[in-house]
């Protein structure tokens, strides 16, 4: 349909979508970078929060985590950080695990791990925020 003389086997639709053979285009890369960007201020907040809380007792830590602003930023930190690390671990697995089945299994396991850590952490934060 075009004057393109190369042996391009892609359909016109595939060219328009631009997703390539992975069917997801640059989505992985883009989300990796977006979460990386978000992680910078969120990590700095988390570290600063821990510095301020160093040596604090049970009641003080609970009160600090129950603060709405702290809880909100902590939840954002967890979501962005966990999403970012799941993407990163996927790349590590894809690089080193050769067997296709084992690759899929470990990536699935990594996703479960990520979600388990996230749900446990966020549930703890919500429990503290909504009255211990």
């Amino acid at each position, binding site marked *: 349909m075009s004057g393109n003389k190369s042996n391009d086997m892609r359909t016109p639709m595939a060219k328009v979508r631009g997703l390539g053979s992975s069917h997801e285009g640059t989505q992985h890369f883009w989300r990796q970078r977006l979460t990386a960007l978000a*992680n910078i201020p969120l990590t700095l907040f988390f*570290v600063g929060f821990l*510095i301020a809380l*160093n*040596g604090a007792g*049970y009641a003080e830590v609970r009160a600090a985590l129950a603060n709405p602003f702290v809880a909100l930023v902590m939840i954002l930190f967890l979501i962005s950080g966990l999403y970012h690390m799941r993407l*990163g671990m996927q790349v590590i697995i894809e690089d080193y695990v050769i067997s296709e089945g084992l690759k899929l299994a470990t990536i699935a396991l990594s996703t479960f791990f990520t979600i388990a*850590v996230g749900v446990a952490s966020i549930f*703890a934060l919500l429990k503290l925020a909504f009255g211990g």
Partner: protein
Amino acid sequence: MSKSPATRELARRERPLSPHLTIYRPPITMTMSIIHRITGGALYFGTLLVAVWLMAAATSQGAFDWVNWAFGTWLGRLILFGYTWALMHHMLGGVRHFIWDTGAGLEKHTASKIAWATLAGSVVLTLVIWVAGYMARGA
């Protein structure tokens, strides 16, 4: 398919090899790239420490005291110190990638300088964080 005698002779003959890992002095950019991946992997499992700490705080005084005690032992502190460094190094390594994303800093010597800077910066930031932490505690 069996190889012809000529092919076998070629395979047997000693041929020059390109420099390999054993005699290769890794450039700093390569080392920092490897460390970036290792710190990323460490931070992946390090999130368990965050989760355990949050869950303990939401559970009971006893659970919290236990986690606090574990984090406060010399081994706990060593792990948390390593965690801090991994976090700072991975963060600065990420900033390095953002600089490269713009097309800047890719020249060989510039890239090496930035790589050294991420290493130095991560050590300095880690020390600053721990000094600040101990000062906040007043101990």
